């Protein structure tokens, strides 16, 4: 893989019809660039969890990605309620999602832990009442 690619997707809160399309497109781009399947899967899962978080909680936001021969970087930033206690939000099983989200199969408190599990680096900056920026990096040539 020698090329570099970057781009962005606009995301709208509560738009469950299109939820997942950005991550799906990102997955397709990574596949077309012949990134290893296990890395594609990790990136797609992390991006999908971040995308669902935005759709569930925020008003709107963006997913920016950049893919270089060294790494995949995804930044998901939103205008949303923010996360009051990031440490608590990182706890498996902790969730503030309403029931209708749980009925859709989400909001089980595994989103952020799952992003952490699949990414090599994860940074979250959040301001309550303003929004959240989540950034993760996955290295393409990291020794297993």
């Amino acid at each position: 893989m020698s090329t570099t690619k970057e781009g962005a997707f606009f995301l709208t809160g509560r738009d469950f019809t299109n939820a997942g399309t950005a991550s799906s497109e990102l997955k397709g781009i990574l596949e077309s660039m012949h990134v290893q399947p296990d890395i594609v899967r990790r990136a797609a899962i992390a991006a999908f969890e971040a995308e669902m978080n935005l759709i569930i909680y925020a008003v709107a936001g963006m997913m920016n990605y950049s893919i270089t021969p060294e790494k995949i970087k995804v930044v998901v930033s939103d205008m949303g309620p923010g996360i009051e206690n990031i440490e608590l939000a990182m706890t498996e099983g902790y969730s503030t999602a309403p029931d209708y989200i749980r009925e859709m199969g989400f909001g089980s408190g595994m989103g952020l832990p799952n992003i952490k599990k699949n990414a090599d680096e994860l940074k979250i900056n959040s301001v309550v009442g303003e929004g959240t920026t989540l950034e993760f990096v996955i290295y393409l040539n990291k020794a297993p």
Partner: protein
Amino acid sequence: MTLDDIKKILGAVVLTGNDDLDTEITRAYCADLMSDVLAFSVTSSLLITGLTNTQVIRTAEVADIKAIIFIRSKRPEGETIALAERKKIPLLVTDFSMFDTCGRLYEKGLRSQSGENV
């Protein structure tokens, strides 16, 4: 086992993916929580679930799920089937409950993770 074997074991109906019944299935994962699927399923699994919304197809696509079987005669709406068709993910429906679906497939040798594949 193949998807066709699974169809026969469960007396399942194929909603989409009739041309892919020769797909080899070696692992399965069952859940109604999509984050659990994303966190714990292994690549190329069969997903057994009672959820029928479009998010199930998105989750399957992202997690490299090979096929989905809906339990207790739960049929997804057209939108879900259409998305699965586009993403080439076969969908099946069985009358069996989650417990009986898993039990029958386990009995015939299907397992979840490689470590438990004995």
